[in-house]
């Protein structure tokens, strides 16, 4: 039995040793806001935070999380970035959007006024095939408006 703290709530779950955090969140806890798009750490769609640091949940074994607090998109639903993304039209198909917002939330927590360069550096690990990048940059630059 494994204990996991996700978005401020404690969970107990039974997971084989090779279960990824993404699988545990989606399949065991029903937190399907975290998406799996490549399942091998190349695209960023599965990004969650561990103690505020963005990680790829598809590459993180759930048994290695231990006491660290997991924050998923479900825990960021009241974050001003959500409104900023909608306002800027920073979502098209939307499949990568939760991962984008989780990454962006970590970025603005560390640096509330990121420059264009800093946004591009911080967000380069999150692929968006629809090409919403200009709007993502705008959303992050204006997240506190």
């Amino acid at each position, binding site marked *: 039995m494994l204990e996991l703290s996700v978005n401020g709530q404690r969970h107990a779950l039974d997971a084989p040793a090779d279960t990824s955090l993404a699988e545990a969140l989606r399949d065991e806890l029903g937190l399907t806001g975290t998406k799996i*798009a490549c399942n091998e750490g190349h695209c960023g769609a599965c990004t969650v935070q561990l103690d505020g640091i963005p990680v790829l949940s598809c590459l993180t074994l759930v048994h290695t999380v231990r006491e660290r607090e997991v924050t998923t998109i*479900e825990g960021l639903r009241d974050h001003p970035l959500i409104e900023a993304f909608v306002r800027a039209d920073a979502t*098209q198909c939307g499949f990568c959007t939760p991962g984008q917002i989780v990454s962006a939330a970590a970025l603005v927590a560390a640096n509330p006024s990121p420059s264009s360069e800093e946004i*591009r550096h911080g967000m380069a690990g999150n692929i968006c095939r629809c090409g919403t990048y200009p709007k993502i940059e705008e959303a992050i630059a204006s997240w506190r408006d």
Partner: protein
Amino acid sequence: MARLIRTEKEVEGRYTEQWIVVEEDTLKQWPEGPLETVGRPAQRLDGLQRARGEARYTADIQLPAMLHAAVLRSPHAHARVKGLDLEPARNVPGVRAVLGPLTEEIGYHGQAVAAVAAETLEEARAAAAQIRVEWDVLEPRLDPDEAVVLTELIGRRTEERGDVERGFAEADVIVEAEYRTQTVLHNSMETHQAVCEWEAGDRLTVYISTQYIWGVREDVADHYGLPPDHVRVVCRFMGGGFGSKNGPGDYTFIAADLARETGRPVKCALTRRAENLDSGNRNATIQRLRAGARSDGTLTALEGEFVNATGWDGWLSSTGGPMEMLYGCENVSIAEYGAKLTTGPMKAFRAPGFVEGTFGLECLIDELAAKLGLDPLEFRRRNHSDHDAVDGRPFSSKNLLECYRRAQPHWDRREEVRARSEGPWQRGVGMASQIWYGGGGPPSYAWVRIGADARAVVITAMQDIGTGTATAMAQIAAEELGLPVESLDVSLGDSARGPYATISAGSSTVPSLGPAVRAAAADAARQILEIAAQRFEVEQRLLSLRGGRIVSSDGGSWSLDEVTGLLESAQILGKGSRGPNPTGMRVLTFGVQVAQVAVDVETGEVRVERIAAIHDVGRVINPLGASSQVEGGIIQGLGHTLSEQRLLDPNTGTVLTQTLDSYRMPTIADLPEIVTELIDVPDEHLTNLGSKGLGEPPIVPTSAAIANAIRDATGADVRSLPITREEMLRALREARERRSERVGAPAG
């Protein structure tokens, strides 16, 4: 009145002649320019659901007792299945059904051979790995030119107008070049997948990530011999398609077969690696082109041989289309071949054929303009055609000259841009024109339902592939009903909950479905006014809907719910359908892009610094969503131009690039400045909206504009996509050699 017409229907540049029942479109177009809601930026209706991670995609569907499928795929490009032993898979714990062989002859690496359904995905994968296949490995066929010689073809097409030989004889200057484009993959973020569930033995529900729920319904019903109404297809949200999800695909039939055998719902989802093998592609092309012009810049002849590396299956996309259609040249000859190869089948990919063909043609045109010493923009103006160059038909509307006029300030920056070259970084500006379809057509239907609370729902069994369909449809209905867009909901994505609507492909969503939504809203508005006239004892002709109220031109005004409130739990239902396209006219989209690049002539690195995109797609419904479409198209075009490429092992034909680190798509760090300008003038002949589609046009000219900017910056002719450093350095070397030959050549 319903009218039966025999009409040409166009999707992705493919025409079919068919019977269509249409209702006459009797509504007059709205006046030009932004209205109350239409033509003004609107946030996505479902933006919050997407941003908050609440949107349920097929990937998120988890049905009670659902099994998971794993597919065994061929490791060979070309092989025969001599023997298949499924027994080891059946003995793996958790396995509930095994299927195979799915085919006898394998035609590409990654083609499905067998499938397993098990309680968990891990068990299904473990079982699939136990299946033993005895292969008879055959020679791969990878060379498109060889396939043409052997007449191993999937389609061929030749077109000729005028007299090309005479045209070349009249030319003062002729250029000839071979261009190549690579195989690129859609790589939608949500992989191809479906969940299938049978009920009562003869009813099937398919949850699927698709661009066309009605197409899936028809194909699935046909495959299983079911009445179409026994097949329900659901796609509430889907994670990208770009042309690759226009049909059911074998994953749907695998899921449905396994579900039928086990009596339980089954999900079959491609892994990312399978997505890179077996979900379609934009086929590679070889284009051997020749163009001639008089010294005044008049094109006298265009000739092209286009070889598409179509693959094991697919269709012949029109790579020669831009050469036929873009310029008013009298003498044109094209020959297109679809090579049947042992590679993954092509599928439509955002303006299939025209993206590839525009790269070749528009680079050739610039090479010709350079040889003539003419300004490339002026050259294009001189060869503009005000009627369809193919068959002389008038255009329903064409504002390409206005696009050129609006491009001029961006074009005029080139002196200043070139002057900013420094060290190894050479800067330049290039342009390319765009022609493509995007007029949509019938049939498409919508209902608009208004309740007692004066809120309205647009109901249509359309899908939203991420372009903002729901939002645009809400805006159109809101405009007609005089309601704020916040009073609208849109119900889509379920074939059992609404009428037929168009495929989300061929830039057809707004031009096909939009007019039907407007007609449905107008039908509902008429009914409200009929009731209001009786309730308030006013002549109906004096009444209209504005600002959420019923307004009488003689001064009276009532809030809308004073009428709708009479309905209690009942509703007003308006119905609308898409009328016919204008007869005898060609409906096309146009545009131009101007790219600014910097090239490091020592390392061959290319950076795209800026792209200005000016497109003419008729009336724009949502300028915010439209700018996102333009940016998205350009960014995909950027990947196509610089970094994306499916690589094959040249000996075996197996795919080397199966992951998103080896198949390199643009990231936010690659982003150029993008300037979007839309002409936004309604097409007066096209439907009650005057709107054309915008999904595809923006990707069409991007690669040629970038290549032409590279020539402007460096004098090098890049002729092969992607423009890797290797290709860039090759082109630079060739340009240097050309210059030194010229310097070394005797005068005269």
